[in-house]
C-alpha cells in the first residue's frame, strides 16, 4: 500500500485560492495514511530530536500515530480518549476533556489528514497564502491558554498535498513534521536545513516513496 497513492486519489487542480477550494482538493475518504518524519527543537534537548513513523486516520474515525524510531510508540485518538502504548509498558489512557489544548492540537492534525479545513476556524485564525501549486496555511490559536504553548502552525503544501507542518512555540522551540517525505540528508541536519526543506516542498510525487 502506497500511502501517497491514497493522498493522490482525489487530486484535482483548482485555480481558486479560497480555503474551501483547498479543502475540496485535500478532501480524503478514510482510511488515510501517511509516513512522517518529525524534528523537535527544544531548549531542554542537546540536539533536535528526530522521530519517524506513520500517521493514519482510520475508517472508524480513530487517528493513529505510530512512532517507529527512536522507540516504538502507538498513540490512538478515539474521540475524547487517547491511548498511548509504548514497547514493554502498559497502555496508558487519558481523556482529552482534561487536556483541552491537546485536543485542539490533535484536532488540527486530524483535520489536515482528512482534508476538512473549515472546522479549524473554530479554534484557529486561519489564513491561506500562495497559489494552488504552492500554498501555506497558517493557523493561529484563538484560545489564550493554548497560545501560551503554541504561537502558530504553518502548513506548507503543493497542490492537493500537505507536505510539511511546522509548529512554533512562543519561546522559539517547536516541531517540524514532514509528511510522506524522504528524510533529509543522513548527516545531522541543522534546524535551518530542516526548515528550508519544510518550507519549499518538492513537487508532488517527487519525494514520495
Amino acid at each position, binding site marked *: 500500500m502506497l500511502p501517497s497513492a491514497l493522498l493522490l486519489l482525489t487530486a484535482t487542480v483548482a485555480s481558486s485560492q479560497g480555503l474551501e477550494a483547498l479543502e475540496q482538493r485535500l478532501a480524503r475518504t478514510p482510511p488515510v495514511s501517511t509516513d512522517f518524519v518529525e524534528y523537535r527543537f527544544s531548549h531542554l*534537548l542537546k540536539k533536535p530530536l528526530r522521530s519517524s513513523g506513520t500517521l493514519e486516520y482510520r475508517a472508524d474515525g480513530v487517528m493513529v500515530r505510530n512512532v517507529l524510531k*527512536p*522507540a516504538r510508540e502507538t498513540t490512538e485518538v478515539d474521540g475524547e480518549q487517547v491511548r498511548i502504548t509504548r514497547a514493554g509498558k502498559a497502555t496508558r489512557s487519558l481523556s482529552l476533556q*482534561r487536556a483541552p489544548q491537546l485536543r485542539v492540537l490533535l484536532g488540527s492534525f486530524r483535520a489536515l489528514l482528512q482534508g476538512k479545513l473549515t472546522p479549524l476556524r473554530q479554534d484557529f485564525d486561519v489564513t491561506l497564502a500562495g497559489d494552488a501549486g504552492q500554498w501555506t496555511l497558517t493557523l493561529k490559536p484563538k484560545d489564550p491558554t493554548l497560545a501560551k504553548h503554541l504561537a502558530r502552525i504553518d502548513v506548507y503544501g503543493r497542490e492537493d498535498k500537505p507536505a510539511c507542518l511546522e509548529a512554533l512555540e512562543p519561546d522559539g522551540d517547536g516541531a517540524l513534521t514532514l509528511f510522506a517525505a524522504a528524510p533529509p540528508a543522513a548527516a545531522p541536519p541543522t534546524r535551518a536545513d530542516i526548515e528550508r526543506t519544510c518550507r519549499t516542498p518538492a513537487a508532488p510525487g517527487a519525494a514520495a516513496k
Partner: protein
Amino acid sequence: MLLAAWCGLLALGIFWVQSHLRVSADLRLFMPSPRTEAQRLLIQNIGESPASRLLLLAIDGDQPARIADLSRRYGAALAARPEFAFVANGAQPPPGIPEELLAYRYLITDSFDAAPLDATRLASELEDRAADMASPAAGFLEDLLPRDPTLELLHLAQRWQPRAEPHQVDGVWFAADGRRALLLVQTRAAAFDPDGQTQALATLEDQFAQARGGSGAKLTVSGTGYFSAVIRNRTQYEATWFGSFDTLGLITLLWLAYRRFVFTILVVLPLLTAGLAGLTVVSLVFDGVHGITIAFGFTLIGVAQDYPIHLFSHLRRDETALATARKVWPPLATGVASTCIAYLAFLMSGVIGLAQLACLTITGLLAAGLTTRYLLPRIAPLPGSDPARSAWLARLGRRIEGLPRPAALYVAIPVAALAVFLWRPEGFWENNLSKLTPVPPELLKRDAQLRRELATPDLRYLLVASGDSEDAVLAALEGLDTRLAGAARAGAIGSYEHAAQFLPSAGLQQKRRAALPAPAALADMLERAAADSPFEADVFEPFLADVERARTLRPLTRADLHDTPLDLRLGGELFTRDGRWYGLISLYDVHDPGAVARLATGPVTFLDLKAASEQLVAAQRSHVLLCLEIAAVLLLVVIAVTLRKAARILRVLAPMILTTLVILAVLRAADVSLSLFHLISLVLAAGLGLDYALFFEHAADDPAEQQRTLHALLVCSATTLLVFALFSLSTVPILQAIGVTVSLGVLSNFLLALLLTRERARA
C-alpha cells in the same frame, strides 16, 4: 371589661411570642434520635454534609454552542457570589497542589512507594520523557519537565480525577443527549435552612436571567436544599390559601348555626388563647420551634374550636351561660383530658419535633378548655335561638330516631378491617425516611436523572472511617486503600474517593520523606541518567531543589490546605464532630453492596443509608406505638373512672375504636403506607370521636338536650370536616395524609357516635 382584659392579654401574648419565638427549619427535629454510630452519621449526613448541600443545575432550550457559552458565563458569575462554596461545570481546572506547596508532591505521591527514586528509575523516567518529547504533547510538557521530570503532578491530577465525569460540549458538562448543560453548585447554607436556600435559589435565578440575555434558555434546579425551599414555600402557600378559605367557610357556618355574628368572634377567642399559650410554653421549654410544629400544632389545636361550640349550642334563654358551662363541663373536661393524654404519648416519643408538637397541643387544648369553662360564659350574650326549638333540627332528630341501631357494626367493622389487612398485608408501614420529608415524586425523578448525568457519588452506600484524630482516620483510610482498589478491579464498585488520596497520613508522609535521596546522591544520579538521554543535564535544577526541600518538610496537614482548592474537596471527606474524626469514602457505581460491606472492619463502618434510615424509622415507630399504647391504657382509666358503668364505657369508646379500624382499612385498601403523620392524625381523629361520643352519651334520653347536642356536633363536625377536606386536596404529601385521615375520621366518628352512642329519646 373582662373581654377587653382578655383581648389585651392576647395582644400582649402575640407581642411576646413574636419577639421570642425562634422558628427552626431543621427537619432533623422530626427524625428519630440516633442510637448507633451508623445512625448518628446518617442524621448528621442529612442536611449538613457537602453532598446534601449540592444543587444540580441544568440549562436547556437553545443551541448547544450557545448553551455551552451561557454555562461558562453563568458558572463564572456564580463562582463570584458568596452564597456558593463552589461551582463546577467542567470549565474549571481540576484541583491541584497550590504553588507554594508544590514540593509536598514527593510526600503525597505513591509513585515511589514500591521502589525508591534511584538511578534506574530516573533513567527510565528520562527515557519516557524523551518519548514524550517526540509526541504532540511535548509543547505542553516542556514547561513542566525541568521541575518535574517524573511527572508527579500529572500523576496526582489523574489520581484525583477517579470518577467518571459528565460528557462535554465545548469544554463544559453536558447531559448525554447533548442538549442540556449541567452545573453543580454547593451552597454555604445547610440543606434544611429554607431561608438560606431560598436566597441561594433567588441568586441562581437572578444570575441566570442576567447571563441569559436574549436567549430562550431555561434553568432547572434540583437537590436537597431546593426541595426544602420548595416544600416550605409550597406548604406556606397552600396553608395560607386553605387558611383564608377555611376562615370564610367557618364564618359562614357559624353564622348559619347561631345567627349572631358575636358568636363567631367568641369562638375565635379560646382558639387564639390556645395558640398563644401553646407557642409561649413551647418557646419557653424548647430552644427553637420547628415550622412544622407550628403549622401542624395549629391544625391540632383547631379542634379547640369545638369547645365554645359545645357551650354555645347548649345555651338557653332561661339559664345563665355559667350554668350551661357547668352542665357541659363534664363531657368537655373528659374530652380535653383524654385528648391531652393521647398527645402525652408524643411528648415521650424521643423525637424533639413531636415533643414540641405535643407540648404545644396539650397546652393549647387545656387553655381553650379552661377559658371556655371559666371566661367565655361570663361574656357570652343570650343566644339568638335555642337549637332545641329549631323545627328542622327536630325533623332531623326524628329521622335519626327512625334509623336502626345496628349492633352488628361491633362485629362487621372489625371483620371487614381484618379482611382488608389479610388481603393486603404488605407495606403497612412507611419505612422510607425520605417520605418523612415529603418531596413530590416528579421532583425526585428529575433529581435522580440529574444525579446520574452528573455522576455524583452513590447516595445509598458509604464507608466511614472514624478515629480520635485526623491522622488516625487518614491511616485507617490508607489501610483500606489496597482492598478498595481490589474491589474496584473486581467490579464490585466503579471507583471510590477518600481524603487520604489527597492527604496521606503523617506516618506515610514521613516514610516517603525518609526514602527521598540526599541532594548530592540525587544530583549524581541525575547527571548519569541525563548523559544517556537527549536531555541537557543542567535543565533539571528546579527538580533537585524541590526534592531537597521535600526532605525538610514536616508532614502536610488539613490545616495547611486551608483556603486551597483541595480544602474544598477535603471538607466533605474529612471532618470532626463532637471530638471524633470521620473520613468518608464516597463510592461510585456500587454493583455489589455485599462486597463493600465486607470491606468494613476495625475503624471502618459500612453505611447503608437506606437500611439505616429504615431501621431508624421502624425503631422510632415502635417507640411511638409503645407510648401510644401506654396512653391508651391511661385514657381507658380516665374514661372508666368518669363513666363507671361498663355499658356506658363501651358506648363511648366504640365509635373511636371502630373509626380507627375503618381509617386503617380504607388507607390499606388504597395501598397507603402509614407514616408518623398518619399516626398523629389517627390520634387527632380518635380525640374527636371521643368528644362526639361523650356529648351524645351525656345528653342521655332528654329530647331537648339531645337536640342541642346534635346541633353542637353538627357544627363541630362540619367545621372540622371543612378544614381537613381541604387539606386532603393539598399537593404537599404531609398535609394530604393528615387531610384524608382526619376527614375520614370525622365522618366515621360522627356517624358511629350517632348510631351507637346516642340513646333513644324518650317519646
